[in-house]
């Protein structure tokens, strides 16, 4: 009896989370997959017809937005690595006893809703707002200068909004590095730069990898930043999907686009993992 219970316990533990995911992720995903292959309209109803046209139509019509989304996501991710790594490094190695305070500060923006943070960016970047207004009246910037509705605003917003997701995993990886490894490298004639390149960087790559996953995926499929900070030329695939679902109510095309994006991201992640991922990346870096 006891052994049976002992054997069942792990399953019992995984059950609530498993059910949750099954109900709220797997089932809707399957429903969407089916929707993407249906034809019809909201008024007459939809029927399953193996209609691949939604994919073909979606991709031919919106390939610009798809490419743009991936590019914006990539740009934001790179900016976040550049901004986030030094922060994570500094907290991990120089944070001392105040590490948790600094981490809390990194997380502080999360206490404000995502949409509200983005709207505050709109306020900051508006054509005659707090930032641009004074610069324009001082003559530093021309009167018709604007940031809103440009890719810079959208990428800036994406970089800002997902930055903590980049910093946290990098911090965790850096924090786990035994400081004695740095001393050992120095003892073995490595300069500060060599110590960083040969020891710190390779050991932090798993964190960078996790950070990239956690920021590139949501940034590429985001629609809030583009709709709040962007214009007609910065429309991302997220905006298209949202529009197709909620405005045009063309569920098959919306679903097909969602699946296309998902597939692209999965392939991208897979390639990235193979190229940089787990042990291989470390081995490459050690050479």
């Amino acid at each position, binding site marked *: 009896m006891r052994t049976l219970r002992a054997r069942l316990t792990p399953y019992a533990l995984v059950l609530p989370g498993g059910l949750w995911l099954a109900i709220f992720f797997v089932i809707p995903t399957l429903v969407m997959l089916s929707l993407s292959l249906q034809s019809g309209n909201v008024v007459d109803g939809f029927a399953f017809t193996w209609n691949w046209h939604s994919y073909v139509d979606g991709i031919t019509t919106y390939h610009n937005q798809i490419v743009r989304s991936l590019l914006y996501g990539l740009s934001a991710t790179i900016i976040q690595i550049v901004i986030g790594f030094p922060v994570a490094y500094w907290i991990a190695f120089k944070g001392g006893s105040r590490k948790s305070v600094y981490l809390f500060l990194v997380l502080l923006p999360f206490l404000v809703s995502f949409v509200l943070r983005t709207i505050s960016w709109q306020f900051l970047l508006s054509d005659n707002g707090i930032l641009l207004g004074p610069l324009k009246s001082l003559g530093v910037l021309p009167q018709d200068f604007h940031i809103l509705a440009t890719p810079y605003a959208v990428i800036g917003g994406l970089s800002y909004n997902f930055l903590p997701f980049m910093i946290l995993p990098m911090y965790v990886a850096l924090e786990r590095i035994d400081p004695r490894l740095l001393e050992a*490298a*120095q*003892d073995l*004639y490595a*300069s500060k730069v060599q110590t960083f390149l040969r020891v710190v960087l390779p050991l932090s790559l798993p964190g960078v990898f996790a950070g990239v996953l956690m920021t590139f995926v949501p940034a590429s499929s985001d629609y809030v930043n583009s709709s709040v900070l962007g214009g007609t030329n910065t429309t991302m695939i997220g905006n298209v999907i949202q529009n197709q679902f909620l405005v045009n109510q063309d569920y098959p095309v919306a679903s097909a686009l969602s699946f296309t994006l998902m597939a692209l991201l999965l392939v991208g992640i897979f390639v990235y993992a193979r190229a940089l991922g787990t042990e291989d990346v470390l081995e490459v870096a*050690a050479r």
Partner: protein
Amino acid sequence: MTEIQAGTGVAETAAPGSQQVPAIELDNVVKEYTSHGEVVRAVKGVSLSIAEGEFFSLLGPSGCGKTTSMRMIAGFEDPTQGVVRLHGQDVTSVPPNKRDVNMVFQSYALFPHMSVWENVAFGLKRKNVDAAEIKRRVGEILEVVDLTGREKRRPREMSGGQQQRVALARALVNRPRALLLDEPLGALDLKLRQAMQIELKRIQRDVGITFVYVTHDQGEALTMSDRIAVMNDGLVDQLADPREIYERPATKFVAGFIGTSNLLSGVVQEVTGSTAVLALGPSDRVVISTETPVAVGDSVELTVRPEKITIATEQPAGDRSVVRGTVSEVVYLGTSNNYAVVLADGAEITVFQQNAHDSTITAERGDTVWLSWQPQHSYVLR
């Protein structure tokens, strides 16, 4: 076994009696930290001179300043005062990567993302040694530490003893002028530790490099060292060879820290020539040498090693030092019997009696016994 020739300077070691510059010198070195606004003096003025090719130990309890002293030699700590010299050159402000010494860290600090080979080759690569030479030297040193064939392993795939040997190889392959070892055997179990002690000593003889060994394990220090500096509270209490440290501890601290020792105190009763007699209890008579001058009426502390003491149930004759006490504990240890004897003044004395001839227990718990030893085995403590 491959013969490793250490870097420049080591060749001269062979010439005995030649006037040599010490491999490592600490000249009145002080290290102060500020911790929570308070100045802590970890090292309070240590001067050491370690000879080329010597196996030198820094021994002491945790917090005595031994690790800090070593880290100042390696360059990880800047001395607050004083000078660190390597082969006569002042390196006090030279960073660790420019010092020709290598360290074996307490927890090995092997690079987890590199194979054994890459770990060992790390230092040579940083020194831009050419690839063929790196290959040859790494191969050689892996043979010395008996790890040939495991070049591709990751540190975490190896046992503690193997990791230890990788750490040793990683340092030795650079042929440093001195090797610094910070409690390198602390993480190993007893059997492996004892095997590695012998192994380390063998490697040190093979490569002829100066070893500076930090440990809190007095047995380890006594077994391996040519000389030992016993440190206590930021100062060197005694610097001598193991025999001297054990047989003639200079301070109460050294006596207590090294081996088991018995502390006795008494008042000088009479001084005759080179000896003095102490009064302890009514039927006690302890003879000490007057190497350290004493006068009648002085209060003196002395130490006697447990194995120097003979236990008897009758009062022994002759000029031996004698004290009387009551057996409070008898422990049979196989190779010896271990007695705890309480003296009239309450002091507890430990006595080891070898099972040389037969294992008869001389005395039982509660017996009154006489403990005696040769006068030269009493050491007066400063």
